């Protein structure tokens, strides 16, 4: 009797509860599989927009530095972007080194931005880190901004002779690409 009493309600409750959880479980698994399925179909649709294999494989660029005289700069294309290569004067290097890091928005020493033994060569992606314009300052006649480097006319960012952001809306210094010196007058970017 006592056994019956304890058994009965629990079994009906159990049955009732079990029916619901089973159905819930089916709904949940169906929804979960559906979501995974939809997601795995959506991903190729989105990822196709990312750079394609041939775009990624864009060969690196080799640049001969010997024709660039002191105080001059050239712009080369690398992955569709302009790369600034500047043969800096002693004065420009001096200015870049003299800066107090505390003044900088994106603190970096000049040494971190050039390669040892090649301090006169500044190689960087010539794109303003604000919204992507190409700053002025490559030609001798260009405005170079208040810090003797580059000036972005789009929204008024000033960069110094190490390409570091000093004034204006840009958040960071101009980027340094990966590059290696093949010999004293040849570099390979990328």
């Amino acid at each position, binding site marked *: 009797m006592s056994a019956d009493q304890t058994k009965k309600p629990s079994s009906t409750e159990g049955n009732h509860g079990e029916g619901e959880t089973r159905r819930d479980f089916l709904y949940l698994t169906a929804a979960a599989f559906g979501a995974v399925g939809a997601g795995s179909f959506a991903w190729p649709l989105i990822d196709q927009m*990312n750079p394609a294999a041939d775009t990624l494989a864009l060969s690196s660029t080799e640049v001969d530095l010997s024709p660039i005289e002191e105080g001059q700069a050239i712009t080369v294309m690398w992955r569709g*972007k*302009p790369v600034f290569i500047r043969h800096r004067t002693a004065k420009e290097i001096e200015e870049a080194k003299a800066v107090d890091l505390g003044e900088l928005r994106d603190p970096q020493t000049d040494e971190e931005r050039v390669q040892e033994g090649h301090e006169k060569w500044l190689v960087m992606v010539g794109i303003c880190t*604000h919204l992507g*314009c190409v700053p002025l300052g490559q030609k001798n006649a260009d405005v170079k901004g208040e810090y003797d480097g580059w000036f972005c*006319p789009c929204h008024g960012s000033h960069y110094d002779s190490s390409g570091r952001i000093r004034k204006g809306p840009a*958040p960071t210094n101009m980027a340094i690409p990966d590059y290696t010196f093949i010999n004293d007058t040849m570099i390979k970017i990328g």
Partner: protein
Amino acid sequence: MSSGNREKLDNPVMEWVDSRLPIFSLLQKEYGIFPTPKNFNYFWNFGAIAMVMLSLMIITGIVLAMSYAANTEIAFDSVERIMRDVNHGWLLRYLHSNGASFFFIAVYIHIFRGMYYGSYKQPRELLWMLGVLIFLLMMATAFMGYVLPWGQMSFWGATVITNLFSAIPLVGDSIVTLLWGGFSVDNPTLNRFFALHYLFPFLIVGVVFLHVWALHVTGSNNPLGIEPKGKQDTLPFHPYYTMKDSFGIVVFLIIFAGFVFFAPNYMGHPDNYIPANPLVTPTHIVPEWYFLPFYAILRAITFDIAIPFTGLVLCPAKLGGVLLMFGSIAMLFILPFLDKHPVRSARFRPWYKIALILFVINAFVLGVCGGKPAEGFWVPLAQLCTVYYFAFFVVIIPFLNKKEPVVPLPNSINEAVLNKNTKAAS
């Protein structure tokens, strides 16, 4: 969308179709006898005008696409070929490029109408929000369209605007690469922009359908902002408003034609007739005029928001500008929930009317600022206007909710219209 109690049509062919798919009954119900407040003024023309412009953009766009080539090597030349060699190509392109401007003119007036007469208020909140969504889609469409001719402004506009997304913390750069399909705005970017520029107008058509559907559920607002109470307050849409809309459309199209034929490049920028050059940024990048107020808000944030003395930057200037720019449209989106004042029309809200007129002037000044280089007094001016833009939504409107007196409104549209006529007569 069933016809309910359908009346038999006289024409047997139409009747055969209508009894199977009640399309004629639907048109008759929604555009024939549809009861419409009888006191509309000309501001109520701009919805129909926007619809005409949307159709014009789709028609001219599709025929332009027959000669346009979305490849960076030839895109610019293909547009020049449309201008010089393709039969009537010059006309089609000028209709399309000026059509975008006039589409925006119509939509801006349409939005102003909604704000002035309180058309966004209960029960038309969703109708209004669908409208803001259309406006957003239009902006995306026009931005991508402007990239297609691949001139200097196309390229640099695309560069600056896509770079906006790099302001998003953590994932920003990956998003920008995803948008570009490379490491700069380049051929993959042009290709996808063309694909999406083709698609988006049809999404707009879809949302316009929902917008009009919602309109036909609530019925139109009117210059008095009071609901029609019966037959005496309304007129059947046809022929009264089909006629009034047609008249407005014709006047609008005459002005439009004036630009297309006599000043087709007035609203464009000469730099876009220089082929895109990734190595040289034009000294002064400006978007098309219809984006200028938003561009001014973007550039107004020239400072980081930091915790004082710690040097901890909470919100860098770049992110701040982007957030405010998108925020400015978000404000429009939530306007129905900010404005809780029970009176709709600015005719009976003298305080709101002043604030709104200032808002419009402010938007024009922002537009001027956006077109000037970001230097000198243009920067603080743009900042001041940005403050008013947001203050209008989050300070002034909530303030008026509580403080602006509620004046007695006319009893009915009919009474107000008749009173006006007897006053004019005496």
